[in-house]
Structure formats: structure tokens, C-alpha cells
């Protein structure tokens, strides 16, 4: 059976050092899957390889039967794989509205884009209030909302989220969690990379644990929540 | 860094291609010159030549330095071309006879890049590598000093082309050996211009002056004195920074002083200055006493309403004398795509005068040539393209090491050149 999204034996090097050492993972359509692991485990590097920002040294990436590794970032976005990077990837001196419009840069259906923009602003009332403000003037949580909303404007099939909870207050973290669930409910598959493993495991159906470039544990999220290793290493218990 | 190398390689290939293009263009130019220069006869000047050499035929190398970069690049290039034409004339005449030998003239040209360092490098190369005994050229004061510091210790005679240095430390003086100025400073024509103004614009008495900030004070004082002597008055003097391209600021103040006459002291950019003066509403006579060709005004200023009552001291290409005519024909044959630049007329004079002195001395020894030159002080002792010349300067500089020769005056009226004639310098 054809997998929705699959990474096979991915290896990535940075200046000679292998950061990702043969990772394989897959996503079924409609899932939320999380990739957890400590800082420097290689999570962000995997997402960069998927988005075409970093060429892998070996391995394959498949999306709906198409091999996507080695393609440039633009063609990957065109296929529907959209990433919200760490640090949010916003355009700080452009307005909230402009950031949202740029999210739909590749879409040619102007009318539908207008409609989506209106929908998004309904969903994110805070962004609506601040539509004319510069992105850099928003709070951290609002910026994260904007980043996710801009990604949604692209109508992604697969949404890659890199550390959406980073630097946010607990209240904001749960708000973001709610948003991710809502997006998933509309049919978007989500690959969530998180250091906040508690949040990640709560949101996800399945999870992979990455340690120094290797997947060490994988399984259903609620199972991992109870695994000895995960509890000790990632949930601080 | 593989790709870094690749891009450098790409750049090299690009550079190579451009150089190749340049080389091809230059070859083409050479061929053209060879075929078209031949029919023109050696009528320029009256160089004494021998068609059947008796003694040995030798080559006399003369170094020529000019700055092909910066605001003086155009006259500099014209200078080099004037020299090349002189060498061609000598070659076609079968050489020049000096003493018992016949000499071909080879002019070795170097670019000073318009700076002292470049001038030093060029002079050192000429003196040490090419072993020249004579060096000529350079129009900037710093270049002149740099060249002299190389040529004098080597026993080489240096003939400067700098016209801006009368009475400066870098000018001729009794204490400076092996140094002559075969270029007339424009302050020698100031009295001629003022006389011309008195005669043709009797009501115009108030003068506004523009001068570059490169030590024109001495020349300015002479202008002021000459003006007062004629019942005229300098009402405003404005200095502009060397390298200026926009003359509106300079002329804002000059025009605001409401002069009857504007006198643009020796500047190769007098055409741009005229434009600024006219744009700011000045309609009176405008004097340019630099060698900048009156024809250049026509080509560059274009607007006939601006091109009226402009008085120039450059050779008038539309009214050439026989010598100029021959020179211009050779230029056109050799560089058909470039308009004639009249600085070539003065440039040609320099090696020609050196050779006249060598012929009189019967020697190519720099010290002997200098001594002979210093004694050629009667009008007509030297021939120049502008008419009878002589060496002078005893009264003003303490030594007869400066060329004097007639000055042309041309007036531009309604976009047309009116040639007034050549005038002998008057002592003042």
C-alpha cells in the first residue's frame, strides 16, 4: 500500500559530521505524528531536508508516491508540504495581513485566497485586530499563531511544525495545541517536532523518539507516554 | 570552495573574452591606420629632415607620461596621440638629422593614472628600463614633482606639459636642473583676453571668476592686476573642488554677484561651467582661457542660446592653420571614430621643440640640449603649430625655460565659431 508520507533511511551531514544517521518514519493521511527528542538530536535537520532547505546525503523521501528529496523548496511547497520553521519564518517588517497573503504566494486562485484570508481572520480574532500591525510588534504567541495561519493559507496537505511551543507561556501553549488540533480536523496531516514532549504526546496519535540522529523508540503516543524510557528522559519524571 | 574557484575561473574567462575583444578592436584600428595614414604627406611643421641618410640611423626614445584616468583623461589621450603623430611624421620623412646621425623618434607612452604614485612608477620604468634621456608630459602638479624626482637624479631632461604651475615650487626655477616647461601657462593669455573684452564689450567691467582649488592664487592675482590696469574689477571669485562634476553650486554664488563677465580660469570643464552659468541666468560674455577646444563647447553644450558670447583660447578646429590642418588630417586617418581634440596640437609641439633644440645643438645630450634651448629666446627661434615661438621666463621665473608662443582667440556666437586670430603674448 502506498504510504502518504515516508522517509526511508535518511542521512544528512553538516560540514562533514553526520547529524541524521539513517532515519525512517512514515505518516498516514490525517494523522498527527510527533517527533520528539532533546536539543541537537537532529529533529530540525530532518524537517529542513523534507522542505528542501538541506540536501540529504543518503536516503529517500516520498510524498503520495512522488519522490521529493533533492527537489527545491519551491516545488516542495507546491506539492503541499508546508513548514512552519523554528523562529516562525515570518517577515518581521511586513504587516500581519501581508504575511498571511504571502502564505498563499503560490496559489493562483485569487478568489479562494480572499475567502481563506477572511476565514483565517475569523479563526484568529487576535490577528484580525492586528491585521495592519508589523509582525515584529506581535507577542511571541501571536507570532506563532500568525506563522501557523500563514502556513494554512497555503492549503497544506502536510504541515510540518518545528517547535511551535518554544518560548510561549503555558496558556499560549495550550492555545497553540488547540489550533493544531483544529487544523488537523480539517484534514491536514501534521508532523510535529517538539521538545515539549508532554504537549506533543498529548496531541499526536503516534510518536518517534530521536536521539543523536537515530530513532530509538516509536509507537502510539499514549503508549510512549507510559514508557519508562520516555518518562525518564523526556517527561522529567 | 570548489564553486568559488569555478566562479573565479568564470570571471577570468569573461576578462579574457573582453581583452580579446579589445585586442581585436585595436588590431583593426591599427590596420586601418596603416592603410589610410600612408597617402597623407608629411606637411606638418617644418622639421628639417633628410631623405638620404649619410650617417647612422638611430632611434631616439622619448618617454611620454599622461594620466588616462580622471578629469584630465581626455586631453591626456589627445596628448599621447599628438606625440604619436609627431613620431609618424618623422618616420615618413625618413628620420631627423641631429649632428651626423639620422634619428627615428620612438615615443614610449606610460599612463600615470592621474596620480603621483603612477607617475613615479611610469618615470622609473622609462628611465631604468627604457633608458630614455628625455621625458615629457604630465598635467598635474603632484605628477610633475614625482616625475622630476626620478628624472633629475638620472640625468634625464624633463619637459613638463603642466600649464597650471607658474611660480609654484614644482615650476621651472634657476635651482632646478634638467627641467623645462614646454607648455604655456594660461595666465599669459589673460591680458590678451581682457584686451579682447575691452574692445568687444566696452561696457562690461565687473568680472566673476571661477577657479579650481589647486593653487591658482598666483594666476588669479595676475588676472586681478591685469583687470584693474584696464579699468575692470573682479567682483567675486569662487573656488571649486578639483574633481567637481556639478558646477551649479559654484555658479550660484558667481551669478548672484551679478558680474558683467565670467572668467572661468583654465579648466577642461569650462563647457560644463558655461552650462551652469547660463542655466542660472547669466547672459554676458563667458571666457574660458584653457586649451579646451571651442568645438568641444558646441558638441557638449548643444543649446545655441547658451553658446553665445563665449571666448576661448583654444586652437579653432574650424579655422586651422596649415600645421593644424595636417595634424587633424592625420588624426582623422588614424582614429576615424574619435573627434579631433585640439590638445594634440600643443602635445605635438613638445617633442618637436626638443628635436629642434637637438638639431641646433647637434647633440642628444640632455644637458647640452637644455643649454641650447635656453638660448633660443628670440621670437621665431622655435617653430610651433601655433606660430613662431621662443624660450623665455627670465623676468618672471629667473630662467629662460618656459615656452612662449602665440595664443588663438575664438569667439562662439549663436553656436558658430568666429576665429579672431593668433596673438603674441604681451609681458605684464
Amino acid at each position, binding site marked *: 500500500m502506498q504510504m502518504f508520507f515516508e522517509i526511508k533511511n535518511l542521512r544528512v551531514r553538516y560540514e562533514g559530521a553526520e547529524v541524521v544517521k539513517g532515519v525512517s518514519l512514515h505518516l498516514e493521511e490525517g494523522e498527527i505524528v510527533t517527533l520528539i527528542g532533546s536539543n541537537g538530536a537532529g529533529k530540525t535537520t530532518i524537517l529542513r531536508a523534507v*522542505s528542501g*532547505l538541506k540536501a540529504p546525503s543518503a536516503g529517500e523521501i516520498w510524498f503520495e508516491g512522488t519522490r521529493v528529496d533533492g527537489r527545491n*523548496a*519551491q516545488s516542495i*511547497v507546491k506539492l503541499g508540504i*508546508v513548514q512552519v*520553521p523554528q523562529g*516562525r*519564518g*515570518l*517577515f*518581521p*517588517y*511586513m504587516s500581519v495581513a*501581508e504575511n498571511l*497573503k*504571502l502564505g498563499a*504566494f503560490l496559489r493562483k486562485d485569487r478568489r479562494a485566497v480572499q475567502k481563506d484570508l477572511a476565514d483565517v481572520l475569523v479563526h484568529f480574532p487576535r490577528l484580525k485586530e492586528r491585521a495592519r500591525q508589523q509582525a515584529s510588534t506581535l507577542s511571541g504567541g501571536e507570532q506563532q499563531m500568525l506563522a501557523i495561519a*500563514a502556513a494554512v493559507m*497555503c492549503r497544506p496537505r502536510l504541515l510540518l511544525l518545528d517547535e511551535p511551543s518554544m518560548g510561549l507561556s503555558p496558556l499560549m501553549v495550550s492555545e497553540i495545541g488547540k489550533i493544531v488540533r483544529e487544523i488537523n480536523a480539517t484534514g491536514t496531516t501534521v508532523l510535529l517536532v517538539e521538545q515539549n514532549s508532554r504537549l506533543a504526546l498529548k496531541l499526536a496519535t503516534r510518536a518517534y523518539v530521536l536521539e543523536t540522529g537515530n530513532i530509538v523508540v516509536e509507537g502510539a503516543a499514549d503508549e510512549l507516554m507510559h514508557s519508562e524510557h520516555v518518562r525518564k528522559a523526556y517527561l522529567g519524571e | 570552495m*570548489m*564553486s*568559488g574557484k*569555478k*566562479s573565479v575561473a568564470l*570571471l577570468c574567462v*569573461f*576578462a579574457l573574452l*573582453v581583452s580579446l*575583444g*579589445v585586442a581585436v*578592436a*585595436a588590431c583593426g584600428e591599427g590596420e586601418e591606420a596603416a592603410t589610410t595614414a600612408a597617402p597623407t604627406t608629411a606637411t606638418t611643421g617644418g622639421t628639417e629632415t633628410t631623405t638620404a641618410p649619410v650617417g647612422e640611423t638611430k632611434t631616439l626614445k622619448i618617454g611620454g607620461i599622461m594620466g588616462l584616468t580622471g578629469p584630465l*583623461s*581626455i586631453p591626456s589621450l589627445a596628448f599621447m596621440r599628438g606625440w604619436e603623430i609627431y613620431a609618424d611624421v618623422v618616420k615618413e620623412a625618413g628620420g631627423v638629422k641631429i649632428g651626423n646621425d639620422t634619428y627615428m623618434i620612438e615615443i614610449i607612452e606610460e599612463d600615470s593614472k592621474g596620480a603621483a604614485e603612477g607617475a613615479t612608477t611610469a618615470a622609473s620604468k622609462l628611465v631604468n628600463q627604457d633608458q630614455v634621456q628625455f621625458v615629457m608630459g604630465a598635467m598635474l602638479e603632484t605628477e610633475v614633482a614625482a616625475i622630476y624626482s626620478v628624472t633629475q637624479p638620472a640625468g634625464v631632461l624633463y619637459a613638463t606639459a603642466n600649464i597650471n604651475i607658474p611660480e609654484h615650487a614644482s615650476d621651472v626655477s634657476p635651482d632646478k636642473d634638467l627641467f623645462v616647461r614646454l607648455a604655456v601657462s594660461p595666465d599669459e593669455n589673460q591680458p590678451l583676453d581682457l584686451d579682447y573684452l575691452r574692445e568687444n564689450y566696452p561696457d562690461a567691467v565687473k568680472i566673476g571668476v571661477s577657479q579650481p582649488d589647486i593653487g591658482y592664487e598666483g594666476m588669479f592675482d595676475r588676472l586681478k592686476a591685469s583687470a584693474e590696469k584696464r579699468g575692470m574689477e573682479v567682483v567675486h571669485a*569662487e*573656488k*571649486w*573642488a578639483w574633481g567637481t*562634476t*556639478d558646477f*551649479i*553650486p*559654484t555658479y*550660484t*554664488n558667481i551669478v*548672484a554677484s551679478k558680474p558683467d563677465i565670467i572668467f572661468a580660469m583654465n579648466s577642461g570643464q569650462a563647457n*560644463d561651467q558655461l552650462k551652469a552659468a547660463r*542655466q*542660472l*541666468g547669466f547672459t554676458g560674455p563667458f571666457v574660458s582661457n584653457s586649451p579646451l577646444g571651442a568645438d568641444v563647447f558646441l*558638441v*557638449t*553644450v*548643444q*543649446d545655441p*542660446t547658451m553658446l553665445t558670447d563665449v571666448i576661448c583660447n583654444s586652437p579653432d578646429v574650424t579655422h586651422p592653420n596649415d600645421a593644424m590642418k595636417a595634424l587633424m588630417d592625420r588624426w582623422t586617418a588614424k582614429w576615424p*571614430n*574619435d*573627434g579631433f581634440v585640439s590638445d594634440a596640437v600643443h602635445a605635438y609641439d613638445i617633442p618637436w621643440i626638443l628635436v629642434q633644440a637637438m638639431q641646433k645643438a647637434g647633440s642628444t645630450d640632455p644637458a647640452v640640449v637644455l643649454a641650447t634651448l635656453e638660448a633660443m629666446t628670440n621670437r621665431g627661434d622655435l617653430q610651433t603649430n601655433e606660430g613662431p615661438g621662443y624660450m623665455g621666463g627670465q623676468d618672471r621665473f629667473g630662467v629662460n625655460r618656459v615656452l612662449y608662443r602665440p595664443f588663438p582667440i575664438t569667439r562662439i556666437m549663436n553656436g558658430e565659431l568666429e576665429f579672431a586670430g593668433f596673438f603674441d603674448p604681451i609681458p605684464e
Partner: protein
Amino acid sequence: MKSFDVWMQAIVNGIALGWLYVLMAMGLTLMLSIMGILQLAHGEIYMMGAFLVYYLTRREIGIYPAIVVSMAAMAVLGVILERVLFRPRPGRDVALTSIVISTGLTLILSSAAVVGFGLYTKSLPPLISGSFDLFGAGVPKDRILAIGFSVVALILLYTFLKRTRLGLAMVASAQNREGSFLKGINPNHMSMAAMAIGCALAALAGALAGSILQLHPYMGSLPMINGLVTIVLGGLGSIPGAVIGGMILGLLNGILPVMFGAAAASVAPLVIVILVLLFRPKGILGHE
């Protein structure tokens, strides 16, 4: 105290000069912020644009169509330069190599210009002749016209960057390069657009300067420096900043020589730049 006429003339001239700096600065700042390169040969593009207008007008083409053709031609040249010389290649320091490449390009283009165009100063036909009465002071009409053209060009550019999809994408890629990749914005297209627009503006500035001043193969070096000073003053990447920076520099260069003489005028802009950088290192309207 100088008269009103003198002040007016100095100010108008300063503003005209300032707008030429702004046109140069816009190209430099677009290339610097979108491509991350310092295009030191931008002055040579300005020079070539001006010479192209000169040769076109000699072929009986009116000056205005000639300027448009020259802008288009320089835009194409910009695209070619981006493709051949400035396109980033993995593993090489973009900023550093661009400095090396564009320095080489400066030498090649100016030498080629000396060979191709000759060392003779040339003039474009005047855009317009005579002077204009501005509150009683006579100011050269060509300067006023140059201001007009520059302002129109800048308004068009501003509208393009603010209102069009491509323009917004250019601004975006200048503000967050990687973020723009992740939106599917092709950085190479943005670079080409930046070069094309920058070179077209340089050609316009060159043509205007060539018409009010003069043409020669080395005409580009001073405007290049003034363009750089303008973006340093105004703040990198800011259009209003470039306008303010250009006006400050232009007015200094227009007024100081008239009020205080040439000597003071040549040092003052440098002093101002140092002062601005001392108290506001990011420039007047710069970000961080």
C-alpha cells in the same frame, strides 16, 4: 547672509542630486537585502545606461524613448549578470565573492567603456533648456525635471513592492530569506528581479545625470559611493530611509559648497555620516 535666490538654487540643486542618489541607493539596497551582495559595479551600470541613451539619441531616437530602452536593456543585463556571475553557489560566501566579482566587473566594464566609448566626455541632448522661476529665483529646469522623473520612478517602485504579489515576495525575501523559501518563493527569481529593477533605476539615474551633467567612462564611481552613503545614512532596506538619506546627502552637497565653499563641502558629508553612524548605527530608519 546669502540671498533668497541663492538659497532656492542651492536647495533645488541639492534635492535633484539627492534624488539621483536615491535611485542609485534603491538598486544597491535591493541587491544587498535580497541577494546579500554588494554590487560594486552598480556605478558602471549607471555609466553604461547613460552611454546607451547617448548612442540611441545619436541614431535619431528621442531622449525619452531612449531612456526607456536603456532602462529595459540594463534590466536585461542585470538578469544576465545575476544568472552568470552573482547566482549563489553552495559552499561559497555570497557577500565576499560578490565583492570580488563586482570589483573585477567594475574594472572590466570601465576599461571596456574606455575602449568602446572613448575617453571623450559626451553630452546627452538636454531634457529641457533654460531656467524656471521658483518664487522669484531662477532654477535650472532640467534639475526640476530630473526630480520629477525620480519621484515618479520611486512611486512606481514603491507601489510595485507594496501592491503586487511579486513585489511583496521581493520585500519578504529581503526580510527573511529562508522564511520566503518556505512560502514557495523562488530566491533566484527574486534575485533576478532585484538586479533587473536595480539596473533599470541605475540606467535612469545615469541618463538623468548624463543629461544635466556629462558622460564619461568613469562617471559611475562617485554616484556609486553616494548611493552607498545614502543607504548607510537611511538604513539598509528601508525605502523611506533611502529617500531621507538621499535628501540629506543631496542637500549637503547642494548647499554646503554654496554657503561655505568647496573645501568645507567636501568634508561635511563624511562628518555627517560618521555622526549618524555614531549615534544611530543602523541608520536613520534602519531595522536592528
